């Protein structure tokens, strides 16, 4: 068990795990499986629930150090955030979400997880949380908005450290319902490239998620 470990992500056959934080032993976030192994506790990471897990299983290769600072846009109720919080156990996840109902759940989560900073805010206006968020090592965005590329670009310009990576989860159906998903991805990619970002990788999230792709960029 736990044959391959890479930056806090543990692999066994076709499943992935993160090690639960010490402060959250025995606690589940979204009814995921908890596995004990040699006194350590691991949380199973469901690719059908979390797009980041789907991307990792489809070959996403990205380094997240345990002391990284991460800006997470579109945190929702914190399913993926909780796993990132497991990985960056000595860092911080600045989690921005605009829906008050979702933030309510996020608050519950961050009461137990000290490295999650919940922020009720609109990612369209990076201005409005600049007093809380420092320059970060990675930006992860999962927002189903038509202007998701624009939001991503303005946040990168504002908060991403030089020569760092960022991950954008593109929902093709949000860009244009009438467009073929591949065309929508290309549209987003060219918008990112036009603003001076380099596309490092593009990963389709099939079969875990329909019409979604992860785009990895560096600045």
């Amino acid at each position, binding site marked *: 068990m736990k044959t391959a470990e890479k930056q806090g992500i543990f692999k066994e056959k076709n499943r992935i795990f993160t090690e639960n934080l010490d402060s959250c032993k025995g606690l589940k976030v979204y009814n995921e499986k908890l596995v004990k192994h040699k006194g350590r506790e691991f949380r199973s990471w469901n690719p059908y629930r979390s797009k980041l897990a789907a991307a990792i299983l489809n070959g996403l290769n990205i380094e997240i150090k345990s002391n990284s600072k991460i800006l997470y846009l579109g945190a929702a109720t914190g399913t993926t955030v909780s796993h990132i919080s497991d990985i960056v156990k000595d860092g*911080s996840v600045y989690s921005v979400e605009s829906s*008050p*109902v979702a*933030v*309510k759940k*996020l*608050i519950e989560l*961050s*009461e137990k997880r*000290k*490295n*999650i*900073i*919940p*922020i*009720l805010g609109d990612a369209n206006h*990076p*201005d*409005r949380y*600049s*007093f*809380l968020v*420092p*320059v970060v090592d990675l930006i992860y965005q999962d927002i189903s908005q038509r202007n998701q590329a624009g939001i991503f670009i303005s946040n990168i*310009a*504002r908060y991403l*450290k*030089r020569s760092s990576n960022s991950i954008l989860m593109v929902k093709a159906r949000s860009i244009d*319902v*009438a467009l073929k998903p591949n065309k929508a991805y290309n549209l987003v990619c060219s918008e990112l490239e036009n603003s001076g970002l380099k596309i490092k990788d593009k990963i389709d999230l099939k079969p875990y998620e329909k019409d979604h792709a992860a785009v990895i960029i560096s600045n």
Partner: protein
Amino acid sequence: MYLITKWFGTFICNKNRIKNKILFSKDEKEIVKKLLKINENKILPEEKKIVKNLKKIIVIEKRLQKIGEYKPSDPFFKKIEIKPEDFDYSEDLLHKATLLLAKNRVKEKLASEDLQVIQMVNALDDLIQTSNLLSERVNCWSAIPTSKEKIQPLQNVFSTVNNEIKSMEKQIDSDMEKIAPNMSKITGPLISARLLSIAGGLEKLATMPASTIQILGAEKAFFRFRKEGGKPPKHGVIFQNPYINRSPREIRGKIARVLATKISIATKADAFTKRDISKDLIKDLDKRIKEIKNL
């Protein structure tokens, strides 16, 4: 000179150096008070004090436009790092303060009245569905010879549901007239409430274009049109307005368009300026509808 405000203080910087600073208190409640002010788009007294007698201030927040030049893309802001630990503020304090801040703001946002209306509209739909279901059962049951006692409890529930529908409608009417007086006068409180519920709030509805308001409630038809072609829907929930459903079929699209533009203007007044502009809007609307009908 650059003015930068962080959660633990406000700073004047120049050439990678911090020239001047005012630190905030180390009590999370005091910090939250300041952060709430920032969220309300206000300039803090500390910020006013620190820029006094200084010229050529560059700021990174739109909020601070009044006391400096707003230049978010200035590379300086990414170069300088003002770390809380350098001033003896811990990550733990940030965590405590942001938790409190988020709790405060969530409470404030969820207390708004339009969320109550959304719940009431949804409840009303549930009640109507239940009433239909029960009425079917009662009719079916009473068609066969049945003793009155057996069917009475169900009939009681049925009439309770019907009474609740009436009182719920009344409640929605009176609430909508308070929350969105302009829109309620133009298209009636119940249609207004339904529009509000689909949009997810008064402010969201007010920032929507009129063309979107026109087809709110007809999403299924609209996306069918976008994906597979065919004809786009002419109206969503605003169809229930007598202006549209009592007009001949050929001009319903035109009237829907006009009505939607007026609703759009009305919601903007309801959400932001809170002025009563309904009389002018109704006059305009009647004029346009007459024009359309006489074409």
